[in-house]
Structures are given as C-alpha cells and as structure tokens.
C-alpha cells in the first residue's frame, strides 16, 4: 500500500465494543495513527473525510434498509473491507430476532412501533457485499485487530487462524474444563482468537468467536448431554452471540 493507507471505521447495529477495541489499544494507538490515516472514525473524530478508503473496518449487522444501502456504499468506497465482530460477521446477538416475529419484539419494546423502521432480520455484512477479511468475536480480540492492520500496512497475510479454541487452550497449558471439571465447553466448535479466555477463568467457552472451520456440533452436543445439559439449554447455547452463523443455526435445530 502506497504511503499511509486511509482507514475508515463504520458502525452498523452493534454495541460499539469492537470499534472501541481500537481505542483500547492504548500502547499502539498513536503508532497506528501514525501508520495509517484515520480518515473516518466518527466515534473518535469529528473530522470525517469522504472515501475512497484503503481499509474499511465494519462493525455491526445490517438491520435496516438504510443500512443495507450504506454497506453497499461502504463496499464501493473500500479497497479492503474487513468486518469486525460477531455482529458484522454473523448478525450478532440481535440476530435472535431472526428466530422470532419482529412485530412482537417491536411491541414488546416500543410503545409506538410505527416510529421504528427496521428489517425483520439482522444479517451479517457478508450477505450484502463481498468481505475481504473477517475478524470474529464478541468482541473481537484487539490483538487480532492490530494484526490485521499491521499485516495490511506491511503487505503480508494476516495470521487469523480458523481452527478451534482448544488449540489455543492447549498451547497456553490451560487445564481443559470439559475433561477435568465436567464443565460443558464450546471450545471444540468455536474459532480460536481469544486465547481460550473462558477456560483460563475455569469457565466453559460459550462460543463468542463463532463456529470454527469444521465444527462438529452434533458430536459436541452429544457430549454436552452426557454432562447433563438438556436440549432446551443446548438451543440457548447455540442461539447466542453467533446464533445466525450457519453451523450454530443448524445445531440449534435439535428437534
């Protein structure tokens, strides 16, 4: 990429956490701001310069017609488009609406649903435009975010593995919670990236990085049942932060 690549950070339906990850890179923030030109990052700067951009980070899922149009524009403006977080890569927690009637939701939440314009589904960016790289996680790992920015600046392939959380768990020498404590863990079907955070706190992974490259949810669900987890709970487990990711969607169809 010639001199300083221009970076834009765009937000769709989300909690802001993934873009905040960039501001949470306290040690690197000023260096990043030196290596790239932060051309459009509304959360951090009033100065918003128009596209095209070399790299566009997209946070959030598509939940309105307006946003569906915005993301198409973002794609036109983007050299490399990177989706960040479970919302952008899988529809996020708000994709739970995809399994219900949004009219009911609107009435539950808002006194005047007619004021609200929203699609009945929350969909990943990939369903609307071509995506060059995906960073998983709810939220993303800031290390992976830095890795992608660094790799793009330096013209190398970002190291973003798609294997299971277990790989990081074992590399770090964390005792497996599933085997050594009987704690159900989604690590075997979840993509690495977090550094096996939950098991390191003796908690089972709950899948916030979404499905790994070859998730065998049927086999893992069978093991969870052996540990005493009922089908209703299994549905909850797969229907959480990456509910609309295909393998988890299927896994939740237990009946």
């Amino acid at each position, binding site marked *: 990429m010639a001199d300083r690549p221009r970076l834009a950070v765009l937000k769709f339906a989300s909690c802001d956490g993934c873009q905040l990850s960039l501001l949470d890179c306290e040690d690197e923030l000023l260096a990043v701001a030196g290596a790239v030109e932060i051309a459009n990052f509304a959360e951090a700067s009033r100065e918003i310069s128009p596209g095209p951009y070399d790299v566009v980070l997209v946070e959030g899922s598509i939940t309105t017609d307006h946003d569906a149009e915005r993301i198409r524009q973002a794609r036109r403006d983007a050299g490399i488009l990177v989706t960040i977080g479970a919302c952008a890569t899988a529809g996020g927690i708000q994709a739970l609406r995809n399994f219900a009637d949004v009219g009911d939701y609107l009435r539950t939440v808002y006194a005047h649903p007619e004021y609200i314009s929203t699609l009945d589904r929350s969909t990943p960016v990939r369903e609307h435009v071509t995506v060059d790289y995906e960073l998983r996680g709810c939220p993303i790992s800031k290390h992976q975010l830095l890795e992608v920015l660094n790799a793009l600046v*330096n*013209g*190398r*392939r970002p190291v973003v593995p798609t294997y299971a959380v277990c790989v990081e768990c074992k590399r770090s020498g964390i005792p497996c919670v599933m085997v050594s404590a009987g704690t159900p863990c989604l690590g075997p079907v979840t993509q690495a990236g977090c550094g096996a955070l939950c098991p390191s706190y003796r908690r089972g992974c709950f899948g916030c990085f979404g499905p790994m490259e070859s998730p065998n949810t049927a086999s893992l669900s069978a093991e969870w049942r052996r540990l005493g987890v009922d089908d209703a709970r299994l549905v909850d487990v797969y229907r959480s932060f990456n509910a609309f990711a295909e393998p988890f969607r299927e896994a939740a169809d237990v009946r």
Partner: protein
Amino acid sequence: MALATESTVDPMVPVPTTIVDRWDETDDTFSLSLAPPPGYGFEPGQFNMLYAFGVGEVAISVSGDPASHGRLVHTVRGVGSVTKRLRDLVPGDVIGVRGPFGNAWPVTAAEGGDLVVVAGGIGLAPLRPAILHALAHRDRYDRVVLLYGTRTPRDLLYADLLSEWRGRFDMEVLVTVDNASQEWRGSVGVVTKLIGRAPFDPKAATVLVCGPEVMMRFCGRELRRRGVPTDRIWLSMERNMQCAIGVCGHCQFGPVFVCRDGPVFRYDDLEDLLEIREV
C-alpha cells in the same frame, strides 16, 4: 555447499542474498537471479526456501543452469502473498535464502537411455536444470525429449529457450496448450496426450515429470500404458512446506516427507497413494 548450514548453525535462519537481475517470463511468472555466496552449488531438482522480509517464506526450485556458479536463478509464479511480494522486488533488493534442500532428478542414472521430460505449467522450472544438464552432457543420453503443456500459449515459460531447443536436431520438443487462440498453430489438449506420440523408447527411457498433481497422476498412468517401467518414472511433488528440514510435519505424503525424502520420487513408490483422495 549449503547456505544456511554453512553460514550459521541454525538451519531456519535465512541468509540475506541480493537480487542481481529479474525479468518476467509470462504475465504472472518471473525469474529472479541471485548472487549466491561463493561455493554455493545445487543439483537439478533441488529447491531453496526464499524469504521475503516480513511477509514469509516459500519453497522454490532452482531453475537455473547447474553449471553456472555465478548465478542462482529461480522462476516463480506469483500466486499468493509471498510470491507476489517477490514479484515486486527489483535488482538490488535483498531476500533470504535457505538451501538447497531435497533430492535431485536422477540425471546420472538416466544416462545411456532416453531422457524424457514431461512438464506442466510452472513445473518446467524445476526441470530446466535437468534439461540443461542433459544438453551439456548430450553424448551421455540417447534421445532427449521435452513434452510441455500449459493452459494457454501466453503461459509458456522460457519462450526463447523453447525455440532454441526446438531448433536443435538432438532434442525433441513437443508443446501443447489447453486452450488456444486463433493464432496458435501448435497442438491443443492436455500434455498427457503427447505421451502416446512422443518419440522415445519406453523400455530405455527415464521420464521426469513435474506439474500439478492431477497432471502427474494421469501422466503416470499414461506412461505405464506406453510401457515405461514404473521405476523409471520420477515425479516432483508439491506440499505445504514450512521448514524444509523435516520437522514441521506439513509436507507429509503418507510415509514420506516431501522435503526430506523428495521432492523427487519414483512413481512406483507413490503410485498407490496418488490414487487415494486427501492423503
């Protein structure tokens, strides 16, 4: 003498080496000529690990003349991040080199009979040193035959050299392409089709094959049909390679490590495995 082992005790540390010259071979393929340290030598079929600073390392066969010691030539197809970075470098830039690794084409064992070289696409690169060697010692071989196929005429490597070879009386060159435009007057079709009509004595030939794995599998079958003993057919295999010294595990193909036991293998050693999916 090997670069990495000689200059450091660590076989994983690349030796910075300067690019002396570079030129395009086709739209996506180019050659790099490096200045090797004094004493560097290789055998036809061996490869080096080339390191593009900060981007990564890839296995690339030596494609130059084994007799020319002043220059170390590689021919590379730009397909991914590392090879594309290598493509963008210019003379004076420095890359890392480790090697040479792997075994060689059996050019000596082939003496006294016909030498048949079957290449597909970039597969001609690792075979060129073998051909150059054979031509340099032409009297040691009966017929020297090259069967070469690429996707289109634009993908033919070493065009000048090919026409020079075509012009020789002591070498047979048959070229084919998968898809051709109007102007192409040569043959059209996959390279395996050439095997049936190529002039060589199957009983006295040694055949060296390099190309995509499917192409090598079909060549193997075709050569066997033509009557070439399977222990005189040799293939050069490609696998993911990260260490080149047999410790990373990536290049396993059943019982062999391609980097350590290959990349050149006798067809009869691999024949069965080649027929099995996803080995």
